């Protein structure tokens, strides 16, 4: 693997961001709006709910963590979509670029873009609404790590789906986080869900993070075992997503879909 070739993918994204405010604003605008909206909702909930429970770390913190995961996923898919929108697959994959270098470039681009969103959210949530991340203690780092890994796996899988089904399948990818959020228990304990939904929740690394976060907020401690499951699942999903992307890529090379990608010829 040559780091220069992965760096080329990151550099392309950097050039596009620098040259286009329309690409820079979404890095922080939507997450900032989410934080402001949920900041006021949690502030209101604190005034009407029984005293003693603070909704800010439980709800606003959950929104922040969830948005971080979504930004990680979208950081990968939007970098990939740049190649879809400019019909660039033939140019890129006609070079020595390997699949692993390309995917690494997508991940590194996502690290950079999602970090911008995370910093904006942290600053806004703490400065405007008093969200103190010390409330999560040392668990904040593993929470972010599990969500980061899960976001990456979702992003890579999303890219594979679009590569397989064609440009129009982009619209399958944007709603994926919304589809998963009821099962992930972002705003409520998993015990709220019916049993069949809980089975699905157990397969989502994010659900272990949000259960853990609520445990930390209510009792300041949490058993490490469930979060390790979340980490293990997220790592497994990255491997599976990488293999899925490689399989779809090879299918595309076998059937000529790289050269004629815009034809959306599913075969």
């Amino acid at each position, binding site marked *: 693997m040559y780091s*220069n070739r992965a760096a080329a993918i990151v*550099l392309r994204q950097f050039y*596009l961001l620098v040259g286009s405010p329309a690409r820079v604003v979404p890095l922080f605008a939507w997450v900032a709006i989410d934080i402001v909206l949920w900041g006021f909702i949690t502030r209101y909930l604190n005034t009407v709910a029984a005293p003693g429970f603070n909704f800010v770390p439980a709800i606003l913190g959950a929104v922040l963590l969830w948005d971080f995961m979504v930004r990680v996923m979208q950081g990968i898919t939007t970098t990939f979509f740049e190649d879809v929108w*400019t019909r660039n697959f033939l140019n*890129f994959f*006609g070079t020595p670029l390997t699949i692993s270098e390309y995917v690494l470039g997508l991940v590194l681009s996502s690290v950079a873009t999602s970090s911008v969103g995370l910093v904006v959210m942290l600053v806004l949530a703490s400065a405007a609404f008093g969200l103190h991340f010390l409330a999560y203690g040392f668990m904040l780092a593993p929470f972010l790590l599990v969500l980061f890994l899960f976001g990456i796996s979702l992003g890579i899988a999303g890219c594979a789906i679009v590569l397989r089904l064609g440009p129009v399948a982009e619209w399958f990818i944007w709603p994926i986080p919304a589809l998963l959020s009821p099962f992930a228990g972002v705003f409520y304990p998993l015990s709220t869900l019916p049993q069949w939904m809980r089975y699905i929740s157990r397969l989502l690394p994010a659900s272990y993070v949000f259960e853990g976060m609520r445990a930390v907020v209510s009792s300041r401690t949490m058993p490490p075992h469930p979060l390790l499951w979340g980490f293990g699942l997220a790592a497994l999903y990255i491997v599976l997503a990488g293999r899925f992307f490689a399989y779809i890529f*090879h299918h595309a090379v076998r059937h000529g879909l790289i050269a004629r990608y815009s034809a959306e010829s599913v075969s």
Partner: protein
Amino acid sequence: MMGERAAHSVVRSFHMTQDFRFGMSNVLTVRDLRKSYGNLTAVDGLSFTVGRNEILGLLGPNGAGKTTTINMILGILEPSSGAIEIGGVDLRAHRSRALKGVNFAAVYAALPGNLTVYQNLRIFGLLYGVKSLASRIRALLEQFDLEKFRNVKYGLLSSGEQTRVSLAKAMLNEPALLLLDEPTASLDPATAREIRAKIRHFALRGQGGVLWTSHNMYEVEDVCDRVLFLSHGKILLEGDPKALPREHGKQTLEDLFVAVAREPLTLQD
């Protein structure tokens, strides 16, 4: 022009002598290449080579299998069977290493229009692992008269300017094998002549070979050392583009092309 062609032949002969001595005569070797989609066979057992300093024309009517062949050599389409070696490296086994020595320009492979000329060249230079990239880009911008467009987005250029940028990108890594799929399509005659001269210069001065497809038979006769006529995925004729028409009772290469397109069976040995 004749002087340049004569010099080209001398240089080519010299390189071929050198190459045969070292057993490296061909930059591209294609053996029994096939590509089928279900019952449709797009490429049917092609075997050919491209030598160093040679410009090989790949000719044939639409659907003959030219672009399919180029896509397989670029590694973006997997052959059903057969082998491709680029500079002695097997493409299937060592795709990334083999493609280091290849580059291409095609009328249907526009570079990202939302990046400037310089940004495109820098990104592709990194992808090809070009050493001393900054000076290489400077040289290419000068060679292709692109300095004034350095910071202009590719999508804002005219088709002739875009072709020059695509060719600059195609020569970034000084490829052993340059693939050109109708590089002068949609260009005015003056620009097309200028582009042909630059490609001839590449083949004459460098160490690479060129595989060129075009529907302009006058251009092919002017540029190519050797041509292959494809029909239904097979090589129908091969030879010197100046001698082939006479050998098959035709006045011009264009007449021969029309005969290949309309009556391929009459031309088979």
